[in-house]
């Protein structure tokens, strides 16, 4: 009897969860499906779900017409560059805070976090002005720097949380065996820190890829990444649903795939370790 009840409950749970899950996922699914339709089927009434002539035409049109590759390349450079640069700067800082904590370590960490709370729009004009003065407006270098600074607190925090979980005894043991600071970092810490660094890399790449305040306001034709490329579809091209869908699918596909790998790190990374 009890067994039948749990079995029934499991069926109900499954149906309910799948319904909700598919409903939430539907806009993405619909975009992907529409990207394979012709413009006429894309706006057909009643809407067609699967029974249409699948076509790749929209993809080739978007690729040809809009220099898509350049936007993609800009996104890769900006997201990748800012993340890697951020990690290079953050690893030593997080390492020292985790292994040689001082009295002020906690204050410094919280202060770093507080810089993340500064509303971007509050400093928009100063950054804009600095960018013009330094010739950084609409340049990938400029965006790499801004996004790196924007995400640096998260990077330091994530790395710090990971490093802190590495037991200090291992370091002491290595030191007893005569390892210097260089050997310690190279042969003991680095192998243990790589998983943490990898997840930090992943999450921050995603955050930088999707950033849509600075990328929209500080770029024009030259350095615009995919966020700005899609925004340019706002009107009137946005009314060509199939092409809009193809462009959108190409912009989100890499991150959707990467994102699914990063679910676990997402929680501790975005809550600064407050929820684990």
């Amino acid at each position, binding site marked *: 009897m009890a067994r039948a009840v*749990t079995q029934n*409950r*499991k069926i109900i*749970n*499954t149906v*309910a969860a799948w319904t909700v*899950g*598919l409903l*939430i*996922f539907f*806009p*993405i699914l*619909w*975009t992907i499906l529409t990207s394979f339709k012709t413009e006429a089927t894309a*706006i057909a009434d009643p*809407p067609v779900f699967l029974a249409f002539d699948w076509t790749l035409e929209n993809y080739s049109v978007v690729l040809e017409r809009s220099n898509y590759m350049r936007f993609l390349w800009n996104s890769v450079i900006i997201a990748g560059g800012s993340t890697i640069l951020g990690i290079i700067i953050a690893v*030593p*800082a997080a*390492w*020292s*805070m985790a292994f040689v*904590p001082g009295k002020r370590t*906690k204050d*410094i*960490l*919280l202060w770093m*976090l*507080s*810089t*993340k*709370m*500064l*509303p*971007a*729009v509050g*400093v928009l*004009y100063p950054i804009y*002005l600095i960018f013009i003065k330094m010739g950084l407006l609409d340049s990938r270098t400029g965006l790499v720097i801004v996004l790196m*600074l924007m995400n*640096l607190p998260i990077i330091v925090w994530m790395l710090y949380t990971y490093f802190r979980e590495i037991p200090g005894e291992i370091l002491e043991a290595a030191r007893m065996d005569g390892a210097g600071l260089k050997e310690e970092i190279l042969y003991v810490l680095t192998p243990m820190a790589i998983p943490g660094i990898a997840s930090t890399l992943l999450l921050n790449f995603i955050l930088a*890829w*999707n950033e*849509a305040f600075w990328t*929209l306001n500080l770029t024009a034709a030259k350095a615009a990444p*995919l*966020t700005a490329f899609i*925004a340019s579809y*706002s009107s009137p091209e*946005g*009314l060509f*649903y199939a092409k*809009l869908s193809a462009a*959108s699918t190409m912009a989100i596909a890499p991150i959707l795939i*990467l*994102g699914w790998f990063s679910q676990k790190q997402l929680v501790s990374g*975005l*809550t*600064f370790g*407050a*929820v684990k």
Partner: protein
Amino acid sequence: MATQHSRSAARLMMAPAVILLLGWMLVPLIMTLMFSFKKYLPLRGGDLGWVGFDNYIRFVTSSAFWPSVLATLAIVGGVLFITVVFGVLLAVLLNQPMWGQGIVRILVIAPFFVMPTVSALVWKNMFMDPVNGLFAHLWKFFGATPIEWLSQASLQSIIMIVSWQWLPFATLILLTAIQSLDREQLEAAEMDGAPPLKRFGYITLPHLGRAITVVVLIQTIFLLGIFAEIFVTTQGSFGTRTLTYLIYQRVLESQNVGLGSAGGVYAIILANIVAIFLMRAVGKNLDA
């Protein structure tokens, strides 16, 4: 363990990150503060000198100010309400035994990874368009007149789009928190005859308190700054001009930097009030 030598090495290793962030915080902040006390119109005469608190007074007395505060509150409040309530329900649901849990989780989390411009544009055109949008088809199917979502129900539409983006975040964090709940406690309550609703209200919900606080605080910080969703949909018209968008318009569209900077200072103060609470929640965890 830490010697004098390793302490100074540690300081040296921290220096680049600290110095960069200090510059990133202070330089623009000081500039914004300075501009906010000036009449500064880059396209109409440039720097026209100090004006004291004029910009601060003009910003709050302009006819656009209160509507923008209300729009901000409506969006932040609406999204928080929807994401927390549905986030808790979804987290409870996803925590039940079922088939294909991993796949459902992936489906639910996916919207978080969609870039803001894509989600705003897909919702605006493919769902909310009054002629060809999916909602219009649905409305017509039931014999109703399609709604012009982004003009007739503009705030609700923005709230819907943004909630869709942030529901995964809330769900994921609340799910993580629920999974750390002691199963035996729930089972004991069940044996003692506590009905499901009571078990939820007296055990699960209090356990989630901390996670809900964190979700609310972090989302508030991000929601106060939403930009792309408004930029590609309504451009701030139909009552969707939030404080962030108003400041953006003052600074970059009408190039009134003094006035916009004063608005920026208000936004910074507002964000800091929220931030103080968030820091407390996070700081507590550091001691643990």
